[in-house]
């Protein structure tokens, strides 16, 4: 007798009593938020409080600047708003109209676009690998893509700092790229992660399990450790998976930042002096309002950031703000992310534990024995039933009784994801369509096309993943083509003819207008971008703080590398996890 209880011993779990916003089971947002009057010019407006915006709001407020963060979506109450349910989580995604086209149109919404405070970190799977040193110089090394305006070593201390702030769980030694260890130990694995390790090991391919993932393998402050609920992509109710919603934003608010949620910024305003002086936005009642600011930081991710620059066109900037290069919206990238599914004789139960767990980066670097440049990672994914059924539609053409039958075997399937680098191309772009979205703003239009190198990589990589799946014991495999993540659209660089921003995200054209998010990355490697986006944000924050005298006077500051400010990390960061090695900073 298994004796299944139908109620917890003390009765059903109840809704929380009315009270402050809850950012997880333990964390309450007790601080009253400061409100800046509309007529007051603040130091900084941050547009989009996601992976990058959350870090910037926190850093700048903690330093003492006046900051207002805008987000088009809600400021979530994790305990009351989020649910353990695929369909019920639709509200987490950017669902207003976008047009997707080109020869290989990408999907958006739930696949890669968050909406609400925390942004994409609310629904990401939380794989947080670093980019490899080669990613920063692939044009020099491989003659493809473009070099970053700085090297890996510049970002390395910021990677280490953000890995501690999230924190990232992972192996004590991660062997790829710049080998390093993680501040929190590996997270326990679900069965599909064991399978990836087993399949790779049998083929002599190195693999790791338990990270790098930004999911607590032990409690972190008032955030509990993971309870293996499996609904990572539906928002982590446990608050074990890092999201700037609870890792950074509360500290920003405690230090005087204001978050204006459900406010869609529709325009960046330009003064007669050629400098930006604030933003126009639609408040929750869709009433148009204005906020003055000395500096505007756009952190809206790869579609909304270029879209906002394009929507802010005005006399003298007819093609959009900061677009003298004509490159705003161009060099958009996604990663090839085909999902290979394998059916096993035994039960897997792929819904248990975070989908992100085991991976290999053994194929990450350019290999001259292959017929394409750059490479890919292989990672576990764990589709829940609705997503899995749609994958079975693509992979097996399943419908009708065939769909019912294969879905009855849901618990026998495991899934591994490709994460392949797609190279930047000018013709992959965002611009404005003639249609209007739900805000009556021009809907963004996305054009995407795979190029030769990208297609060769996919054609080479998918059979490798199928081999691993079979080596792990799968008796059948099937695959769904898809893409993941968004990068580019406002790329940074040294040359103002070939890039939109400089290496700190400041637009070449307007000294008090910055972009900082995934849109400024010139290339994307074969790593999930969230860690890199947050590291870039922490570095830009340090730059703004170091150069505040000039920046707040709207003057062009020199491009000196700023001193790092670990004192501006959220409190307690440095005293948790494996003690850090003291990294000497290299330029």
């Amino acid at each position, binding site marked *: 007798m298994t004796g*299944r209880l139908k109620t*917890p011993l003390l009765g*059903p779990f*109840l809704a929380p009593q009315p009270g402050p916003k809850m950012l997880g089971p333990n964390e309450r947002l007790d601080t009253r938020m400061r409100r800046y009057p509309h007529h007051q010019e603040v130091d900084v407006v941050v547009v989009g409080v996601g992976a990058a915006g959350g870090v910037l709001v926190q850093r700048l407020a903690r330093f003492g600047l006046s900051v207002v963060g805008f987000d088009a979506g809600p400021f979530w109450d994790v*305990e009351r708003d*989020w*649910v*353990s349910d695929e369909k*019920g989580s639709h509200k987490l*995604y950017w*669902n207003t*109209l976008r*047009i*997707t*086209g080109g020869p*290989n*149109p990408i*999907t958006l*919404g*739930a*696949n890669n676009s968050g909406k609400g405070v925390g942004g994409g970190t609310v*629904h990401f799977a939380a*794989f947080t690998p670093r980019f490899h040193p080669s990613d920063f110089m692939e044009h020099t090394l491989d003659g493809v893509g473009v070099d970053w305006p700085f090297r890996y070593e510049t970002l390395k201390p910021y990677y280490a700092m953000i890995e501690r702030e999230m924190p990232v769980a992972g192996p004590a030694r991660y062997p790829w790229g710049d080998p390093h260890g993680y501040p929190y130990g590996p997270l326990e*694995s679900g*069965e599909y992660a064991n399978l990836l390790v087993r399949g790779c090991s049998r083929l002599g391919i190195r693999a790791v399990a338990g990270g790098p993932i930004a999911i607590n393998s032990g409690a972190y402050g008032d955030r509990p450790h993971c*309870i*293996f609920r*499996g609904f990572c*992509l539906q928002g982590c109710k*446990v608050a074990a998976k890092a999201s700037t919603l609870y890792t950074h934003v509360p500290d920003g608010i405690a230090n005087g930042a204001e978050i204006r949620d459900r406010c869609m910024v529709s325009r960046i305003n330009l003064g007669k002096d050629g400098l930006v002086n604030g933003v126009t936005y639609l408040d929750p009642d869709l009433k148009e309002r204005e906020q003055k600011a000395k500096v505007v930081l756009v952190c809206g991710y790869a579609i909304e950031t270029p879209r906002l620059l394009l929507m802010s066109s005005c006399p003298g900037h007819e093609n959009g703000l900061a677009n003298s290069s004509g490159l705003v919206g161009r060099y958009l990238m996604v990663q090839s992310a085909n999902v290979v599914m394998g059916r096993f004789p035994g*039960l*897997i*139960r792929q819904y248990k534990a975070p989908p*992100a767990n085991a991976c290999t980066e053994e194929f990450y670097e350019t290999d001259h024995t292959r017929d394409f440049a750059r490479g890919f990672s292989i*990672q576990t*994914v764990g589709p*829940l*039933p*609705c*997503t899995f*059924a*749609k994958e079975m*539609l*693509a992979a*097996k*053409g*399943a*419908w*009708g*009784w*065939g769909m019912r039958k294969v*879905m009855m075997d*849901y*618990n026998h399937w495991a899934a591994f*994801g490709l994460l392949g680098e797609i190279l930047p191309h000018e013709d992959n772009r965002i611009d404005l369509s003639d249609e209007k979205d739900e805000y009556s703003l021009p809907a963004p239009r996305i054009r995407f096309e795979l190029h030769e190198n990208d297609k060769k990589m996919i*054609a080479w990589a998918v059979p490798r993943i199928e081999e691993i799946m079979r080596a792990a014991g799968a008796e059948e495999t099937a*695959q769904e*083509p*898809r893409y993941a993540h968004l990068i580019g659209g406002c790329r940074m660089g040294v040359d103002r003819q070939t890039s939109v921003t400089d290496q700190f995200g400041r637009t070449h054209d307007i000294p008090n207008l910055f972009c900082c998010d995934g849109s400024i990355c010139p290339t994307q490697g074969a790593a*999930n971008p969230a860690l890199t986006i947050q590291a870039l944000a922490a570095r830009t924050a340090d730059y703004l703080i170091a150069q505040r005298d000039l920046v707040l006077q709207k003057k062009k500051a020199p491009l000196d590398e700023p001193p790092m400010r670990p004192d501006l990390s959220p409190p307690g960061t440095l005293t948790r996890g494996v003690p850090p090695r003291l990294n000497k900073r290299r330029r």
Partner: protein
Amino acid sequence: MAEHLPINPRTGEPLPPRPQPGYYPDFSTLDQQAFWDAATREVVLKRVTDIPPIRFFAHDPALATALFDRILPQDDRDPDHRIPILNYVDERLSEGVSDGYRYAEAPSDAECYHLGLRGVESIAQSLHGTSFIQLGSREQDEIILSLRDNSPPAGEEIWSRFPAVNFFELLVTDAVDAYYAHPYAWDEIGFGGPSYPRGYMRLENGLAEPWEADEQRYDWEPPPTSLSGSYQPLAGLIPEHARRRQGGTH
């Protein structure tokens, strides 16, 4: 209606409808609702008890009903335990719930349904001289297969506006989004469902939690009248012409 029932391949006999098909016969996620957090419980129970009315398909629900009965048949379920797929699809369409993107040159989902249903009807009329709803299940499946293969034998003026295979993908996507969001379907496939604040603790080897059920397989084959039991992948390695909807993975 025995010809609509799945069969036992050993005996060739139809399997009688049951309250809960699938290999986890005594598993019920709804029985665990007291262990769910209140917000999740409210959303899931509302889905089960508060069935949305037919509005979008109100002018001709019979055709859409017949189509979804073939796109995702439920003849193996007893009438009290069928999942009202059409109502959930109708809710999405009548409330204009969007995935956040629309393929360039594609009509809106609502327009796709208006066009697609007309297209299906014109195929039925052209092949059989009668309405889709009057056809036997094999003839209905043949029409659906012609959509999947993007070779509809009639309705050229409709399918030139959007490819028939896209209508097929829309139908299946909407059907599975409705069906597999329902706790009855979770029980059928052995999905543990919501598990906050309790969590999962038996992570490896496919073990059941104390409150989950072990698998008890039985053999079944699709009914002999159906054509939806075999598989033919829609996707190549590269989604050249795909116009489908996707959730997130990575």
